[in-house]
């Protein structure tokens, strides 16, 4: 079950190798995103689009805010 985390957790997990995924549309990602985040829009999230991700490392999803 996915767990909700805050920004301190994000910083700690990323420092330990977690992968950041912004799930907003590409144009919103292009404007501004967290450092080293990759973009996989929710509507395109499937087996093919997740190939850049490492299955062995934790993943953190985020969007704009509490949407």
């Amino acid at each position, binding site marked *: *079950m*996915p*767990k*909700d*985390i*805050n*920004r301190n*957790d*994000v*910083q700690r*997990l990323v420092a330990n190798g*977690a992968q950041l*995924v*912004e*799930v*907003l549309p590409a144009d919103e*990602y*292009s*404007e*501004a*995103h*967290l*450092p*080293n*985040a990759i973009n*996989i829009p*929710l509507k395109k*999230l*499937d*087996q093919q689009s*997740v190939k850049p*991700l490492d*299955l062995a490392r*934790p*993943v*953190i*999803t*985020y*969007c*704009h*805010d*509490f*949407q």
Partner: protein
Amino acid sequence: MSSRAAWRLESLGFSPVYRYAAGKRDWFAFGLPMEGEFASIPKAIDVVRREVPTCHLKDRVGEVYKRCQEVGWQVCLVVNKANIVLGRLRREAWQADPEAPVEQVMENGPTTFRPDNFLEPLIKRMREKKVGTVIITDSDGVLIGILYRKDGEGRLQRDQPTDEIEGSHASRNQNGDS
């Protein structure tokens, strides 16, 4: 949206999966790094002055005034132990009884802005409201510093493209000639 994405990733075999629920709005409002097209746009955090005088609710006005005078400030921000902004002392406050506690004379809940606010619209708003300084806090209300309008104007002036400056000179010259 990020919740559904997290569940979908889990269904695709990823574990553990986390959701940063507050998202990038929270991240940037906290003054943390940004990548992307907006990263190079000047923001409040680029010109904020961090060394600002602060005091606590129970401090005495006279003692706070003395401390501010020593460092050349007319304004003092009232914070709690967590450095969260509770109030502001302006020039008028210095006329109060020196023995009065700060909380009796402070301006309660002054307006604050976030470090990721774009500088240009913020400075425009400050000009319109005839405001010389604004307080910058993170999204939790923790003090970051004070932004001076003149600092922001200076930064925007420096960032103005050369051709734009030349264009405006040309325009002025043209007007002068006509």
